[in-house]
């Protein structure tokens, strides 16, 4: 019996996917679980596995087609059976991707929660010239500079383009000395060495300082958002404007975790070493077991779904955005297994090669910016999860114990909660309960 494979839904707000590449062609044998195709969602490129074994009889979409979720993309059957072609997935052109309103009610259980901001104050885009450096878009010619009559593409060697990109040098302002005016390495190096303000744009100025009397003009730059960035923008606006957030901050004593980690890592090989985050993830999972109402999703006006599984989502910074990988049954697994499972998931997320299972099904998220020397921050909820925990840096600080000032490891964490689901007292108790695990971490091992 022939089976139809459809465009999977890989996130609760995914409405369509781009069929990037067929891994199997018509006529090829396929086993259940084999990769059939690669698709691109708003968030990442993921592999679609076949749900049936047999022969790929028919591919119903072309590479590059945009296919709505649920539409058939392929038929798998036996080599000789007669197949009925379902209505082919009407591919839409990229341009007119319709603005679908969010599904009225989420009847299905919450699925992948992929992107979510780690930082609540992501509010410094184009308008602020002092803002974070906007990544340059490749080496595409800059919009014609009015003070410069150069037209056509800029001639520069690949190496020159790369050095220019790395050092934020504006190629349009350079004169090339290579054949036909090609800009080559030595032209860029000369520009960098001279610190010519007209040539060197952006930060990272050359060693010689720019004379203060010579203003440097820098143009605005309009950058096209990636699909991931667009999805983050849409989801975060929706979350922050439609969900009533409240926040609670708690400071944890981390001395015991730091000591235990050091001790355990002495027994582990380099690639098995436990991170502070592994301890936090495990502690959060055990605490959630005690607080089912925070391991939950608001599901319409009269219902909250309390999830049976405790799947902790971990926010991963990726190029130009953020993905949340979903660790499964975190509360039931030993620390070492959690750590070993997370490493490849995080690696895949960074490479843009996540599997659907990597990003599906988290029930509570942890966003850790500890490695960036952040004292504390407030995260935006990752809908439909009811809570998210933002982790700051573990740092040595002067602390008062029994009337004496001592040095101790401290870490601040802030929980953001959906007020429709829970209240301050419950969240405060959660944070206290979490302290029990973080401050007596042997509990994480038994």
């Amino acid at each position: 019996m022939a089976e139809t494979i459809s465009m999977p839904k890989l996130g609760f707000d995914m409405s369509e996917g781009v069929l990037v590449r067929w891994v199997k062609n018509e006529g090829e044998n396929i086993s259940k679980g084999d990769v059939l195709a690669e698709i691109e969602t708003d968030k990442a490129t993921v592999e679609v596995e076949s749900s049936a074994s047999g022969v790929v009889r028919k591919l119903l979409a072309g590479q590059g087609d945009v296919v709505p979720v649920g539409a058939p993309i392929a038929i798998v059957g036996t080599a000789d059976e007669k197949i009925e072609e379902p209505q082919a997935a009407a591919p839409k052109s990229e341009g007119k991707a319709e603005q679908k309103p969010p599904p009225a009610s989420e009847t299905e259980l919450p699925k992948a929660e992929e992107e979510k901001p780690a930082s609540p104050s992501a509010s410094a885009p184009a308008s602020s010239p002092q803002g974070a450096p906007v990544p340059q878009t490749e080496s595409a010619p800059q919009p014609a500079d009015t003070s410069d009559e150069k037209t056509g593409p800029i001639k520069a060697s690949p190496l020159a383009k790369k050095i220019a990109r790395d050092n934020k040098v504006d190629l349009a302002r350079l004169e090339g000395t290579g054949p036909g005016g090609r800009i080559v390495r030595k032209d860029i190096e000369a520009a960098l060495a001279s610190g010519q303000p007209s040539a060197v744009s952006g930060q990272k100025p050359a060693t010689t300082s720019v004379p203060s009397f010579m203003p440097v003009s820098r143009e605005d730059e309009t950058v096209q958002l990636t699909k991931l960035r667009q999805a983050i923008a849409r989801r975060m606006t929706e979350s922050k404007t439609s969900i009533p957030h409240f926040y609670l901050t708690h400071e944890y004593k981390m001395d015991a975790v730091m000591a235990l980690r050091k001790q355990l890592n002495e027994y582990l090989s380099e690639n098995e070493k436990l991170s502070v985050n592994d301890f936090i993830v495990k502690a959060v999972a055990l605490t959630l077991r005690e607080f089912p109402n925070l391991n939950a999703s608001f599901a319409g006006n009269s219902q909250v779904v309390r999830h049976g599984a405790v799947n902790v989502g971990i926010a991963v910074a990726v190029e130009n955005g953020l993905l949340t990988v979903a660790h499964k049954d975190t509360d039931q697994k030993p620390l070492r297994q959690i750590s070993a499972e997370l490493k490849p998931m995080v690696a895949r997320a960074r490479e843009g090669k996540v599997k659907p299972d990597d990003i599906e099904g988290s029930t509570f998220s942890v966003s850790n910016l500890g490695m960036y020397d952040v004292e504390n921050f407030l995260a935006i909820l990752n809908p439909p999860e009811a809570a998210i925990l933002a982790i700051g840096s573990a740092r040595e600080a002067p602390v008062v114990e029994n009337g004496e000032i001592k040095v101790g490891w401290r870490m601040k964490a802030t929980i953001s909660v959906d007020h429709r689901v829970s209240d301050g007292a419950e969240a405060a108790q959660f944070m206290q309960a979490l302290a029990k695990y973080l401050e007596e971490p042997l509990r994480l091992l038994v």
Partner: protein
Amino acid sequence: MAKITMREAISQALMEEMDRDPSVFILGEEVGVWGGTYAVTKGFYDKYGPQRVKDTPIAEAAIIGAAIGAAMVGQRPIAELMTINFAFSAMEHIVNQAPKLRYMFGGQFSVPMVIRAVGGGGRQLGATHSQTPDAIFAHFPGLKVVSPGTPEDAKGLLKSAIRSNDPVLFIEHATMYQVRGDVPDEEYLIPIGKSKVQREGKDITIVTYCKGLELSMKAAEELSKEGIEAEIVDLRTLRPLDMEPVLESFKKTNRAVVVEEGWKSYGVGSEISSRIYEEAFDYVDAPIIRVAQKEVPLPYNRTLEQAALPQVRDIIDAVKEVLK
């Protein structure tokens, strides 16, 4: 370290391996009583006898076919082709049988065979006896193609070729038998499939092998007088191709010239420059230039022959063009 000729180096390799392993034997045209067209096997017939140094009829398909058969049943034949141009008469055996038998028979057979073949132009042997068709043979997976440019490499690589359990085409250059170089006194092997930096420099990378190495070294000496220091990477093996030293050098110099004696179209230079563009694109500072033979059948006339073959002058010009 003794300074010996390429001929002596190859001869030593053959003799050492024949002494070491009784399954090694030589067959080919005039390899026995006459001592080899290029005198490489002089004295072998007297030392090892007709069983291990076999003169054959002028029938290349039979020579290679017999060698393949012997190799399949456990011998280690070294088949000599008087010139690589005669390989075309045995093409079926060289590219369609020897490299594929292990694969086609699921590992039940292997073909531990060496084909020594003399290639290259410059001796006024005419268009059909002067070719450098190395790239053709390097095209086929399963056949190792080795072509050394120094006596030291020739000896070490030939010994590795004889010990290889898969077929190796070992290409020597007709004009290089008198080239002298230092060769270690003690026994040594040089692994197949390893390129080598033969001269260090910082300004440009010259990628080459075999006769091209000799020409490139001379060009580099000339360029050095003008303050241009060329780094020369010698491929030594065309398949399996070792790009690592090439890429490493290119990432340092950002500019390259590829020198080969064969024709430019679809050649070794095309392969090397393509790989550089693919694997080190962001390091490219100027187009890579290929120096190769003119696209004509090689003339017999001495002046025209030299004009058609790549010369030291061509390499110098190419380097300067790339450095513009």
